[in-house]
């Protein structure tokens, strides 16, 4: 019993080390000065980060990526939430079709998708090939499966159909029952799929490179470009954006975990406090900038 426990611990430990070594290496490299014939760097420096944070291109790329993510994830929520709700509650016989449509993107490799998109949108009525708009469209499709699954399973978990039945019998209109009964109970589920989508899009390279490339430099394209100039700088970028993904994942985990422990009740409060915290962070960040 005891020895098998040790065995498990060793396995887990090895796995963690295996996963962490490249990360630790990257981190060390991003703060290393001279590092060629020793195991650990001979000297440490924050120069790479300073260089990174002083580079206008980095901020621009970051802003562009954020713009793309906010637009496509926002669009996805605005379009998919009502669609899935209406299909699930009022037209359940179309559910199979919606599910098939939402899962389709899984089956299309980005390269194939990108080539197709460029072909379709480079002439004809909608000529958006090479602009960020085509990327937003592609990202919308990329995150479709996640958004679909997240929203639909939230609706299932709370048994939305029955809640709507109950609300309508109590005199609520269809819209009122969605707003007062369904939405507050699935908001945390939606938030989780939203954050997952954000994390996914953050590291998206294939579509960005093929569809717009250098014309609309996203963080990933910036990263790819820097790869050629300075290894230290690249490491600093990777670590920076990795920290952000980590932060996001942390928030997702925290939300899901709390969700299971304490279903929906204080969701509103929790999310409010979450946004308040974010808000404070933002304030400090802005003050820091000044």
């Amino acid at each position, binding site marked *: 019993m005891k020895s098998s426990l040790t065995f498990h611990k060793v396995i887990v430990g090895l796995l963690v080390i295996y996963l962490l070594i490249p990360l630790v290496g990257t981190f060390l490299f991003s703060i290393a000065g001279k590092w060629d014939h020793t195991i650990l760097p001979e000297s440490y420096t924050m120069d790479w980060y300073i260089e990174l944070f002083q580079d206008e291109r980095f901020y621009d790329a970051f802003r562009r990526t954020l713009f793309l993510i906010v637009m496509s994830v926002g669009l996805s929520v605005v379009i998919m939430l009502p669609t899935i709700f209406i299909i699930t509650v009022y037209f359940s016989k179309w559910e199979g079709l919606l599910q098939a449509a939402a899962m389709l993107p899984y089956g299309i490799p980005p390269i194939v998708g990108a080539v197709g998109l460029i072909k379709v949108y480079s002439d004809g009525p909608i000529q958006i090939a090479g602009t960020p708009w085509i990327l937003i469209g592609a990202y919308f499709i990329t995150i479709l499966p996640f958004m679909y699954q997240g929203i639909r399973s939230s609706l299932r978990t709370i048994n939305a159909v029955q809640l709507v039945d109950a609300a309508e*019998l*109590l005199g609520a209109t269809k819209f009122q029952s969605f707003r*007062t009964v369904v939405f507050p109970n699935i908001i945390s589920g939606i938030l989780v799929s939203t954050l997952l989508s954000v994390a996914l899009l953050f590291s998206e390279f294939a579509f960005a490179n093929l569809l717009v490339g250098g014309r609309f430099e996203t963080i990933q394209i910036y990263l790819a470009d820097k790869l050629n100039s300075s290894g230290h700088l690249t490491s600093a970028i990777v670590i920076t954006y990795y920290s952000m993904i980590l932060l996001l994942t942390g928030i997702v985990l925290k939300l899901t975990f709390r969700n299971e422990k304490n279903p929906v009740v204080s*969701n509103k409060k929790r999310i409010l406090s979450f946004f308040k915290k974010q808000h404070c962070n933002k304030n400090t960040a802005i003050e820091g900038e000044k």
Partner: protein
Amino acid sequence: MNYVTIDQVTKGYENQVVLNDISLTLKKGEFATLLGQSGCGKSTLLRSIAGLEGVDVGRILIDGKDITNLSPRQREVGMVFQSYALFPNMSVFDNIAYGLKMKKVKNIKSKVKNMIDMVDLIGKEESYPHQLSGGQQQRVALARALVMEPKVLLLDEPLSALDAKIRKSLQKELKRIQKELDITTIFVTHDQEEAMTMSDRIFVMNKGKVVQSGSPSEIYTSPVNTFVAKFIGNYNVCNMEVFHKLVRSTELKGNEVAIRPEVLQLVSAGEDSLDLQENWGIKGVIKDVSMTGNVLRYEVETDESAFLVDYLHHRGEMFEQGARVHILVPKKECIIL
């Protein structure tokens, strides 16, 4: 004057008829029960009355008004679901107040308070559904429906998820509240005992049809067909030819005969003081004895078929397994189907 009228309602899904030409009427203040096995269409009928499902053919009237094509919110009916369907993001108070808020009525606070008082949930106003027991949640669901003062209250197996003890006490309480408010109620259950104790009137359903309606004692003492006889009272149902052989008499006519287990008597095979004026005697052997609380149930094997015989459990009087007996069948208790 009928308060609720269901007039030749038929409904089907794809290729399956779920409600088959159902007609029934209720008086104001009546407690009616739809009783039938799972899948016979009880919930579908209830949901059709509530407007959550449409019907293919037929009309539904409440208080003289044809509501067949109204939306649920216009029908003035209240409904309690088997799984409660409470709003998880709202406290007990807000759950109960929800309908009143939607309707923008006045005095919401005092109405909700009264209702909380009535269903005995004082002190739980600020609790959330997941903090309540099943029984408490069901009370909230009931209060939420009742506070709207609906014309008809629909209850879809509201107690079947609860354990036996809480169920019994909630049955009583539900009945008390229903009497107090004098509210016309349609209750759905698959449990014949529950239907018997609670209802003014029972509609027995089978395969989308109402097969019999009447007061609990009418249904119990004179079932109209084999299905009702077996479903309601564990009747012994016996083919007439077989019965003729067993009792060596062809006095009874008809297809089948149904006899309740508790009207049968057992006499040891040795005794010869049998009253064969009022009864028929059938020879048999005790095959099995089982006890359900205060009732002893014997399974008696005869030449042709097995009979169930119920006895109240008195101390000391018991036939052993394998004992040879006569079953005394009172002639006037035989129901011909």
